[in-house]
């Protein structure tokens, strides 16, 4: 067991972890922050995406020990300071970018990472960026719309309907 300390959603946390403790397990089991989900075991579905030092990573494919000293942001830390939904979360609700909600945390975290890198992505860029986030419910249409809307683009003018 080793001791790790990291900042999660702005708060310093520490815990004892084993060598094989994944960051997801540390978040879900030790910190009881269950917003980060696990949908596969081959690093493909993206339900577990969090930010580590500002970059999107798959928390199921990183050990907790490797996040020692890191600044971690999860879905639980995405709302505005007053608890209201942030602009991306609002857009997901506004454009019906989620159904069962299981992939949603990863989608929101990936969307946030994309918009940080590329504040006005084209539709093709949004779709390409979501390669590592699988959604089975929405058919992606409304997720893409939501992300483009969150970037301030007029999706009503683009969409055919």
């Amino acid at each position, binding site marked *: 067991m080793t001791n790790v300390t990291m900042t999660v959603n702005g708060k310093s946390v520490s815990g004892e972890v084993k060598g094989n403790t994944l960051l997801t397990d540390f978040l879900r089991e030790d910190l009881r922050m*269950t917003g980060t989900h696990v949908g596969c*075991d081959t690093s493909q579905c993206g339900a577990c995406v969090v930010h580590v030092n500002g970059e999107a990573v798959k928390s199921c494919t990183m050990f907790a020990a490797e996040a020692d000293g890191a600044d971690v942001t999860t879905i639980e830390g*995405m*709302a505005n300071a007053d608890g209201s939904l942030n602009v991306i979360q609002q857009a997901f609700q506004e454009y019906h970018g989620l159904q069962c909600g299981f992939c949603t945390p990863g989608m929101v975290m990936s969307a946030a990472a994309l918009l940080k890198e590329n504040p006005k992505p084209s539709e093709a860029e949004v779709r390409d960026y979501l390669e590592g986030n699988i959604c089975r419910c929405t058919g992606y249409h*409304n997720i893409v719309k939501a992300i483009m809307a969150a970037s301030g683009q007029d999706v009503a003018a683009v969409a055919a309907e």
Partner: protein
Amino acid sequence: MPKDHGIGASPKRREDVRFLTGAGNYTDDINIHGQAYVHFLRSDVAHGTIKSIDTSEAEKMPGVVKIFTGADFEGVGGIPCGWQVTDKDGAPMKEPAHPVLAQGKVRHVGDPYAAVVADSLEQARTAAEAIVADIEELPAVVDMGKALEPGATKVHDDLDDNLCYDWLFGTDTETTQAAFESAAHVTTLELVNNRLVANPMEPRVAVGEFSRANGEHTLHTTSQNPHVIRLLMGAFVLGIPEHKLRVVAPDVGGGFGTKIFHYAEEAFCTFAAKACNRPVKWTSTRSEAFMSDAHGRDHVTKIELALDKDNNFIGVRTDTKANMGAYLSTFASSVPTWLHGTLMAGNYKTPAVQVNVKAVFTNTVPVDAYRGAGRPEATFQLERVIDKAARELNVDPIRLRRQNFVTEFPYETPVAVAYDTGDYHATMDKMEELIDIPGFAARRAASEKNGKLRGLGINCFIEACGIAPSNLVGQLGARAGLYDAATVRVNATGSISVMVGAHSHGQGHETVFPQVVAEMLGIDESMIDIVHGDTSKIPFGMGTYGSRSLAVCGSAMVRATEKIINKAKKIAGHMLEASDSDIELKDGQFSVAGTDKSVAWGDVTLAAYVPHNYPLEDIEPGLEETAFYDPANFTYPAGAYACEVEVDPDTGKVTIEKFVSADDFGNVVNPMIVEGQVHGGIAQGIGQALLENCAYDENGQLLSASYMDYAMPRADDIPHMESYVVDHSCQTPCTHNPLGVKGCGEAGAIGSPPTVVNAVIDALHSGGHAHVSHIDMPVTPSRVWAAINDQ
């Protein structure tokens, strides 16, 4: 101006806030003090005899609580099948035993034969490696054709062969034969409806609990229908009466059919929690899901279409082998029969339709309902053979369909169902407008300039939803009724909890159902909450599948709300000193017709619970009503879809350039949610058409056992916004349910696969590959390349 509340409005979903902030409560988020973890040992061979299982070393391993094998379950029942299909000779289908843990034999890769319960999951896995299982591998049957050959290896030794049933349905053989003999043209097509894995993003989870204090079992599970699980597991497997068994399905991360069924892992965790005197938790990995979640589709079909000299359809004959896998899952037997054969008339007035289905046992994972369940298989074969016929006869595929449409309703099909209403020309008109058929030639020319082949595919479909009239399905072999139930509990201050039998796992019931009740009562939607997913809180429910939630459970909710209104009017009448027949309810106010006398909703509800001035001699205090609703018929959503694809002839890669759908769902309560359902269904249909393939090798090893080999549709597989429209403006309301709704959950998955394949074939023909009459799904680049190069 679109409505901003009530029926027809698109309020933002209230469930979204918790899902967007990480505050959802999915089954894997449930951790009960003292819980142990189970790891299942699953067969790595497709077929084998269990000679011995030695658990002695494993039992001594650290953390082990208890190890179970098939012997521990000899005293309990097996996993039951909920639908009895009768063979063409009148014999019942064969129902082999399906033990919770394998007994004597393992029958598919993934079949569980032992389970280790330990303090931690890793301890359970480590101990499992110390179990010595002597399993003698036997030859496996994987291909259905080979499974039916005389002398084939039997999946179940106690059966005569691998045939579950041979079902013959629809028009009699003589009449059908006569139609084909008189035909001017017969088009024949042999095809495969590919095996799929539903893949809800949340893998299955079960947590069992047992209370020594009151003898009550609780199962938390990822289910679309907790009452059905309680019924099946309590009555048929573990022998627990309903009042001692609570089943909770909290937030569930998608279902698509595969979470309807009662699974061995659920029974195991419930059983083991008592045996171990500890809560027992199982969380499926995705790899485990591929070999333990029921699969979908997997039909091999030969269909023939007979046309007269004027191109009228005069006969359809179809012969299907349907894979059941190694055991009969909950609704497996009904999918290729009553959810498939009954749809073989499609949108057409073909007088003779005969369906033969042979259900076959193989050494593969059980196959059951997956989004659309039977209806995609019916639609695919019918719409593909019609397209082929149009090509053979050199007629316009739209015209050929139109001339054969059913236009008068109600319409009795030759396959047992009666369509109550519809307007197939209207959806076809809408589709033609949206796809812009006149502009296609120019778009094709532009694609050709870039070295690509462009094809246009169209498709029509009908489905039977709102499942289902109990008396009818009872005659057809269902072992349960398919009504639903709702309780409307009005609280003293006027707020309302509606306990509904339908379970929401993405469909947005928590938002949509209050829209209906609010509209009926004229009160604010925020005063109404939906309660679902817990057998201890809701009266009863048959769950969510078959596009039935609003059509069936919503109807129960309407009936219960009507009872509330009736009673509330009596109370209001008393308060206003008027006859209740003169009381009108509007905008949350009860008023006496023709006067300005009124009382508010809240005054009436308060009076019901504080009955100081109340007609106690006539009615009881309180304001809570329950209704069970049993539909009079199926509902029949229908639609017309079209898409344009580009095929890269150098690589065989297909891309969807344009997609439009024109659906008739009857009345629509929340357009935003309906469109979301269609988007999701179409993505799954595109997945089936182009990407997804659950494949076994000849030894029964699963080749597509993870997302590394099973291709899920991703964001860039779906057409861009400017060339993608889902429309539901054609509305012929259902004639027999109070909301006039038909259901929208499955349409996309039913309508899209033939649309895509028809478009690919059209593209290849435009490129001079006229010899390609069909490519089986998924139409992968390598299959397209092989087809055009005769490989």
